[in-house]
């Protein structure tokens, strides 16, 4: 089974949210995902990187976000990692509409969206150390490729 990977680190600033989406989409494009699959992956990247910037680093631009992407056959494994404050109550954070920052019009939908757009999600977090989210999405095999 063919495999490939990439890793990038970048400053935790809003400009890099769209950059992260573009990088992941460009990398995953080599296995011919559908537009829908690409948009799903871009959405989870956007949510996870936004969380790292807003919550992990509380908008401190000195923070660093690291993304890795692995292609294993038709599966994509993504990790988005920060070394920020960590999540105090992960169970609460995963509840739809729960947010620690309601005043800033945060919807509390980040984790709900991430869970809905991939096949599997695992979250490791430690107070004062950071958060690492691992996503797995299975892409439809593009049969035309093998004909």
């Amino acid at each position, binding site marked *: 089974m063919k495999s490939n990977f990439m890793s990038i680190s970048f400053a935790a600033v809003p400009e890099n949210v*769209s950059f992260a989406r573009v990088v992941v989409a460009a990398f995953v494009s080599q296995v011919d995902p559908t537009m829908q699959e690409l*948009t799903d992956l871009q959405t989870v990247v956007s*949510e996870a990187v*936004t969380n790292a910037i*807003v919550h992990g680093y509380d908008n401190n631009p000195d923070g660093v976000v690291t993304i890795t992407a692995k292609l294993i056959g038709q599966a994509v494994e993504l990790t988005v990692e920060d070394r920020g404050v960590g999540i105090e109550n992960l169970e609460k954070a995963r509840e739809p509409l729960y947010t620690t920052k309601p005043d800033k*019009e945060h*919807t509390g*939908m980040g984790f709900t969206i991430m869970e809905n757009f991939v096949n599997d999600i695992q979250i490791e977090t430690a107070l004062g150390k950071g958060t690492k989210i691992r996503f797995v999405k299975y892409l439809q095999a593009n049969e035309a490729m093998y004909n």
Partner: protein
Amino acid sequence: MAIAWEQDRYRDLLLVRLIGELDMQTAESVRQMLQEELAKGTVKSLVLNLERLQFMDSSGLGVILGRYKTLQALGGKLLICGANPTVRRLLELSGVFKVSAVFETEDEALQSMGVMTREK
């Protein structure tokens, strides 16, 4: 990719077409623009045309839900049209569809408010 918009006004109805990507980087400018328009107190209905919105995440949902709350306080109404399948899923998940009127096309949204599209 940034964000841009077009506005049209039909009496007390404000139509805004969002173009580009709505995420944490671009959300603030859209929020400000909409909030300034609503603060004038002359808008009773807001139609958001998302047909040319190529990407949106929960930062965009926050902008839309926030403007819904403002409109609600003013006794106004929120209408959404042209959302692509992914944006639709986000709107459904966050409950925006429950509090807004949803249409496939801009014409349908405007007609539901009694606006003929050649009228201004």
